[in-house]
């Protein structure tokens, strides 16, 4: 006998030898949630986890990751690291991150704790347990990291309250709540497969590479530290889908419909990221279009979906629209946020000449034709001492909750509007994809908490803009135009060449 157990033996000892089959309680009562979705599992032991983590290795490596991160945060705090950023405007991206992404990490922590309880098989239970702890670690490390900036800059102070209340943050919030209120298999496909495997690279990699390029070392470090867990989460997503597809042919159409739904839901969510990549990073890493082509078209459509063809799975429905939109998505979202930033937890401004030159280069077919004229108009208003803000509240899509800003496929100047009447009530959608999602489960989506409707119902602090903003938890300087904002003034003062102590 060898001195030490191999990785396989240790993993088997943890996930198989410690498991038992209940005999005096009906297993269906122990695991009551894994039958109603119609998914058939014949052999839970066929689940494999290539990471083969055990309790001791998990903690050993997670502790090492945390040690590295906290060393960076210490050095950053001691060295006035916040002054080494490329520009204070960069932090708008991190404001969006702590408001909209960090609470999702916490939601994921809860979600995977639930899955860790409810799956019948010990392999997926343990993988979900590790992920649940990972997600809590991400929440904590992100808060610790960004608290370094919160000392000096606006927009980061009330992220939990904002996540629950602010209009654009209902986009990520409702996405996750949709997943968590589904059954365990659908929510696994939603988060682990469609979000973690299909789309997370689009979110994290440009975000973190952008942090690195813009002098934000702690965010880069937490990002890569979190992302190293993410590769385990991607594996859980891929193992899950392969396992379920291999267990029973009857699972295939159910899973296909979930892929169709959750691809579209996730894609609409990352619209916020698209504008972040193209408009919020002072030093650019890659454009949304390039990132989409690399991480989605090349790696997923030409890699993953070719692999899944074997099981009878085809690329997500409505994927063609996403491909068509890659030339226009980030611009349309950025323009909307520019108009509504009087009610947001970040600042926006007209991209400067250099920035527009880069956008022109990245989007030769669309930028000058469709978007440069809008920015020119906004700039002229600003030069004349004004600032263009939209007067009023936007209509939101009933499913993705993004304002109705998207255009018809092939016609980037006509806003796409779809309507469905359900039980005598009219519902509006931004796209065929969101309409399709609604029509599958209207009884679910009629319950959506739409921020604009809520304001009109009078439950968001009051009828006026200042009352709503106060209810959102926003403070002076958090919102509106960047030029002349508190962050901008502070940044200029801190970088003025004044001697120390003067």
């Amino acid at each position, binding site marked *: 006998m060898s001195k030490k157990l191999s*990785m396989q033996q240790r993993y088997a000892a943890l996930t198989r030898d410690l498991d038992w089959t209940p005999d005096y309680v009906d297993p269906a009562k122990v695991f009551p949630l894994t039958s109603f979705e119609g998914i058939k599992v014949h052999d839970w032991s066929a689940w494999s986890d290539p*990471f083969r983590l055990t309790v001791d290795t998990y903690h050993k490596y997670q502790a090492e990751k945390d040690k590295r991160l906290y060393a960076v945060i210490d050095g950053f705090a001691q060295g006035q690291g916040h002054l080494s950023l490329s520009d204070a405007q960069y932090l708008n991206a991190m404001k969006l991150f702590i408001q909209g992404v960090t609470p999702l990490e916490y939601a994921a922590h809860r979600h995977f704790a639930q899955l860790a309880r409810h799956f019948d098989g010990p392999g997926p239970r343990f993988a979900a347990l590790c992920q649940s702890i990972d997600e809590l670690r991400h929440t904590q490390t992100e808060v610790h990291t960004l608290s370094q900036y919160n000392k000096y800059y606006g927009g980061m102070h009330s992220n939990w309250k904002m996540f629950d209340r602010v209009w654009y943050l209902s986009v990520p919030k409702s996405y996750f709540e949709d997943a968590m209120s589904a059954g365990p298999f659908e929510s696994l496909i939603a988060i682990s497969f469609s979000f973690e495997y299909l789309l997370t690279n689009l979110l994290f990699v440009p975000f973190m*590479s952008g*942090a690195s390029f813009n002098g934000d070392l702690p965010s880069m470090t937490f990002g890569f530290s979190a992302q190293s867990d993410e*590769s385990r989460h991607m594996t859980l997503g891929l193992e899950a889908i392969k396992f379920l597809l291999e267990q029973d042919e009857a699972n295939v159409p159910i899973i296909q419909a979930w892929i169709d739904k959750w691809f579209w839901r996730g894609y609409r969510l990352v619209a916020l990221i698209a504008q972040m990549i193209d408009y919020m990073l002072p030093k650019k890493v890659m454009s949304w279009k390039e990132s989409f082509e690399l991480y989605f078209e090349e790696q997923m459509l030409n*890699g993953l979906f*070719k692999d899944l*063809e074997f099981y009878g799975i085809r690329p997500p429905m409505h994927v063609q629209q996403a491909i068509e939109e890659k030339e226009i998505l980030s611009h349309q979202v950025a323009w909307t946020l520019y108009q509504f930033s009087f009610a947001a937890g970040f600042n926006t401004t007209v991209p400067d000449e250099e920035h527009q030159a880069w956008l022109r280069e990245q989007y030769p077919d669309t930028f000058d034709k469709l978007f440069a004229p809008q920015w020119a108009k906004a700039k002229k208003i600003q030069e004349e001492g004004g600032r263009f803000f939209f007067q009023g509240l936007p209509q939101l899509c009933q499913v993705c909750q993004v304002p109705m800003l998207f255009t018809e496929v092939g016609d980037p100047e006509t806003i796409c509007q779809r309507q469905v009447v359900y039980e005598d009530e009219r519902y509006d959608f931004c796209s065929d994809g969101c309409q399709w999602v609604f029509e599958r489960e209207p009884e679910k989506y009629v319950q959506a908490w739409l921020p604009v409707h809520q304001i009109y119902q009078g439950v968001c602090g009051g009828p006026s803009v200042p009352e709503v903003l106060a209810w959102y938890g926003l403070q002076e300087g958090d919102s509106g135009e960047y030029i002349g904002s508190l962050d901008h003034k502070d940044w200029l003062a801190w970088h003025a060449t004044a001697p120390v102590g003067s």
Partner: protein
Amino acid sequence: MTTGTPVKSVGVELQESSDDARMVIEAIQRDNADVVVSYLPGLVKVQSPGELVIRRETVEELLGRPWETHEFQLVIVSYYGHIGEWDDDQIVIKWDH
């Protein structure tokens, strides 16, 4: 965009950080023909047609110290493909079908 390649590629993205990460990249280059290495701020992208192998022995030789394959978790940022094998001696990433 590089579409229509006859062999589907797989790849990993690693942190551009410590010597450890550099040695892992060198080991990947040594053990896999035709890898393409590219750089983004803070991160290194390694792509390989068909399959990508990380061998413990090669990494240990380059680092000059013992290295468990679990340590790969400290440098990996992301990957695409399917982790077909991860044991004490090697990690293999490839598509199954």
